[in-house]
């Protein structure tokens, strides 16, 4: 399973590096979202700084949606996904590989967006240990839940519009927990963010485990 996951993740990351969709489209999109929020709340800089963690994670959430959709779009061209299924790769390995590739892209995006948030919103990124830990758990949760739901919707003709409807409510706990963990951390009270970070870890563990278990039936049905 893990060797299959490595193979799929390496293939997906190579395609993304080659196509530059993540850097030329997903990242600019996330930055535009941050900038638009800055315009909307520009009259009230303290409110903008206070809302920064929530706005940051909304931007990450939307970007995750694009990254996940892109991850499955490359499989639909020339029936490449069918070829992968036909090859006999372990479905759990395919799930883990795709989730890992999305997580890597999101991690890079989060670092760049955090810099953008500091510049645009004047946010102070304190207590990096809590920020990194909660972001890591949130990233794994976003990627694993996203890939699982995208696999469910992969063969539907309405997948582009259906996936956000299915996925965004599921990811709401990640948005809320990550925003609270970062808010507590950035306001100098990292201890208050620990339960939120723990919730993120639970979410990530649940969705990685669920994905590994149900990937076979999900990919077989679709």
């Amino acid at each position, binding site marked *: 399973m893990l060797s*299959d996951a490595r*193979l*799929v993740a390496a*293939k997906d990351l*190579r*395609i993304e590096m*080659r*196509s530059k969709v993540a850097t030329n489209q997903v990242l600019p999109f996330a930055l535009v979202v941050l900038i638009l929020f800055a315009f909307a709340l520009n009259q009230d800089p303290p409110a903008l700084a206070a809302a920064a963690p929530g706005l940051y994670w909304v931007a990450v959430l939307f970007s995750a949606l694009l990254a996940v959709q892109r991850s499955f779009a*490359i499989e639909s*061209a*020339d*029936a*490449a996904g*069918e*070829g*992968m*299924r*036909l*090859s*006999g*790769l372990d479905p759990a390995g395919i799930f883990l590989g795709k989730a890992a590739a999305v997580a890597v892209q999101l991690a890079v995006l989060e670092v760049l967006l955090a810099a953008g948030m500091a510049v645009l919103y004047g946010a102070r990124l304190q207590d990096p240990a809590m920020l990194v830990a909660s972001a890591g758990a949130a990233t794994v949760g976003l990627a694993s839940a996203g890939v699982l739901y995208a696999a469910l919707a992969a063969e539907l003709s309405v997948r582009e519009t259906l996936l956000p409807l299915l996925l965004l409510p599921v990811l709401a706990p990640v948005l809320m927990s990550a925003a609270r963990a970062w808010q507590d951390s950035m306001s100098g009270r990292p201890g208050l963010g620990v339960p939120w970070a723990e919730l993120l870890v639970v979410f990530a563990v649940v969705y990685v485990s669920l994905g590994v278990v149900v990937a076979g039936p999900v990919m*077989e049905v679709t």
Partner: protein
Amino acid sequence: MAPAVHLRDALALAGRFPALAGVDVDVEAGEVVVVRGANGAGKTSLLRLCAGLLALTSGEGRVVGHDLRTRRREVRRHVGLLGHSNHLYDDLTVEENIRFGVASGGGRLDGVAAAMDHFGLRGRLAGVPAGRCSTGQRRRCALAVLLARSPMLWLLDEPHSGLDPEGRHLLGEMIRRGSQGGATVLVATHEGDPFASVDVAASGPNPREIVMGGGLVVSDRPASMAAAGS
């Protein structure tokens, strides 16, 4: 020795429509079988069933010794299906696509170079993204994956599609070599004379021709009889 393909009264649905309506087929290991029939006759469905991509709704089905109902993943490890798509990623190069196709199918990467050589994909073309290749070059990539993987059962659905005369000759050569190496080959085509496009009549050991219609096998005879019109 168990047959490579054993189907009895096999029923498979495409949605609610019976794509295969009770097919009986036995193919021995090492045989070359040409599957003929008009559009919608069930040729592609037969190949997809044998590849474990189409579910067996009722009847019996065993492919390379594995039950099609319960062990479809094991079947896929031993089967190579070249369908209407080539299963290539546009942003990967020709060589990267072939290496991924072989590695994901559990094949040995040391056969990649020879397979690329066979289909004239070495040199400059190896580094070209598949998205910039012509239809025929993409077909050659997909065939090279199959050749390098060298599965036990080759399922070729209109394999000559997009190939120039040289590519067709190389395909025929590949089938001949595969068959001599013990592989079982099923070639589906709707062309009137499949042997004109897939050069197996003179090369394969006793090729057989199955004609399908309406999701059923309507005739099953040696290719030599079919060619003679008997």
